[in-house]
């Protein structure tokens, strides 16, 4: 019988701990498939964040470092500068990257570090139980904005791709979603390209994936995608914000 599908060997066999309907599982697979398909598995060193993906070191079947909260882009810089021919990637949520690690990600982009960041924006802190993130939308209720996020009191939503696009050292920035097969295929293409660019020695690459958090958004997985389209998409439009490779 013909074998039609095999799980990527860049993932371990450990079952994911993620909540039902969470998109981390899809993103893990896209990242792992990209690494394997590009033949980069034996050169890859991944960084697990602090946040929902804190156990990523148990899922990605490559050498991994667990990190302090938000510091992955600096830690990745240390790895890449020590071993410049390896493929180094960070996997970060919006609390990790946009809040506590905002300095590290900006300066990694400013320096044009030849690393790849997979950034998951779900507009909320998942692991700690649904607090407001810098990416939380105005009016969105979280456990630390119980009456809805108020710009003047709590700050305004942070647009990471748009912010990093200002830096000359950023090489490739794209925001993607996972609503359906077409979007997942597109997301995979973007992630793969971000690794391909690193393999070619290009500058800083970040793929922002709009993730869902049915648990903390208080809805079903299907409703979560609808909520995301309706509420997150106007603030976080999909598309390429920078692609220096595409300009050439």
């Amino acid at each position, binding site marked *: 019988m013909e074998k039609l599908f095999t799980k990527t060997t860049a993932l371990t066999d450990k079952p994911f701990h993620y909540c039902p309907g969470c998109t981390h599982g899809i993103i893990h697979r896209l990242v792992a498939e990209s690494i394997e398909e590009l033949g980069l598995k034996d050169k890859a060193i991944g960084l697990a964040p602090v946040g929902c993906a804190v156990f990523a070191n148990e899922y990605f079947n490559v050498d991994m470092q667990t990190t302090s909260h938000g510091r992955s882009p600096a830690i990745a810089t240390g790895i890449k500068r*020590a071993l410049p021919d390896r493929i180094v990637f960070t996997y970060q949520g919006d609390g990790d990257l946009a809040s506590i690690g905002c300095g590290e990600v900006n300066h990694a982009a400013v320096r044009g570090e030849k690393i790849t960041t997979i950034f998951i924006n779900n507009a909320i802190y998942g692991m700690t139980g649904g607090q407001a993130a810098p990416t939380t939308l105005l009016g969105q209720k979280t456990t630390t904005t119980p009456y809805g996020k108020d710009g003047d009191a709590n700050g305004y939503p942070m647009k990471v791709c748009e912010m990093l696009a200002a830096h000359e050292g950023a090489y490739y920035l794209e925001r993607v979603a996972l609503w359906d097969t077409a979007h997942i295929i597109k997301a995979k293409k973007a992630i793969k390209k971000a690794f391909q660019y690193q393999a070619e020695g290009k500058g800083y690459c970040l793929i922002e994936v709009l993730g869902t958090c049915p648990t903390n958004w208080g809805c079903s997985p299907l409703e979560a995608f609808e909520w995301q389209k309706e509420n997150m998409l106007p603030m976080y439009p999909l598309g390429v914000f920078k692609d220096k490779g595409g300009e050439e």
Partner: protein
Amino acid sequence: MEKTVLMKGNEAIAEAAIRAGCKVYFGYPITPQNEIPEYMAANLGKAGGTFVQTESELASISMLYGAGGTGERAMTSSSSIGIALMQEGISFMAGAQVPGVIVNMNRGGPGLGGIQASQGDYFQATKGGGNGDYYTLCLAPESIQEACDLVQLLFDLAQKYRQPVMMLGDGMIGQMMEPVCIKEPEQKEYDLSWATRGWDGVSRERAIINSHYPNPDDMVIQNGILQEKYRQMEAEEVRYEEYMCEDAETIMVAWGTVARICKSAIKSLRNQGVKAGLIRPISLYPFPYAILEEYAKKDQVKRFLTVEMCAGQMVEDVIIGTKSLKPIERLNKLGMMSHTPKEIADYVIELEAAEKEGK
């Protein structure tokens, strides 16, 4: 080629690190250690290494964690305030058993303090400093020559113990010039099967650099591994100097540049017939407790005198070491003021006179 040259402390330390095989250096400007990153920027690349000026000390120590996790020889340097900011990363390095060399040129504090020499970082350097149960192996030089020798030794100790290690100097060590002969040590090979360098899937287990142990059973095991390592360091890495202690009635205890001033005071006291000596801890962690106890038990020893450029921090270890078998006097100076040899000698004479008068 090893020859004696006149060099500023910070530059000599940087050169010594390069000759010890430092491959990557990460640093953020802060006085009084700026000549280290400046020297690295000018010279590390030529030696085949990489210099990165970081956006903060938080980034410096995070980069050190990443680079150390590959097993390559890596270093950062800073001064007091910057080292305070690094405590998150130092704790992570200790927890995940990541090697790396940290140089601290101690300046005045607390807060912004001032840029001149101080010993106020003793607690921070020797008692952990960040969160959790850990120690950072810490060596303190009294001269530029010793600083060069110790920083080279630290690269090996970091690898041997898979540990963050620190050299605690001060503004004086960093800023003064002295003749120095920087060695070109042979670089020992260490097992790197634990390091994240890319995995072929067959030649070893998958490498994970990790300090995250949510299950208490696992945390107990990991803490046990770390504590065993600290006991080993306490057994094997104690370093100190005894100076004119054989017949000494007053034994000074001081580290770093202050110890050197004590030696001048001791020479002056000896000329006046006063029997004074010095025990100089070189390893601040692990602290040389045993030698202090040994001297505390000698009948000839009447007193200890701790001399510190801070409110008195090392004295707590001297109390532990001597088991308070003899009186411990303190001569401390705060506000980045250093002692003069005469001040120290006069104080010892005062102590002796007071004892004779039965005060």
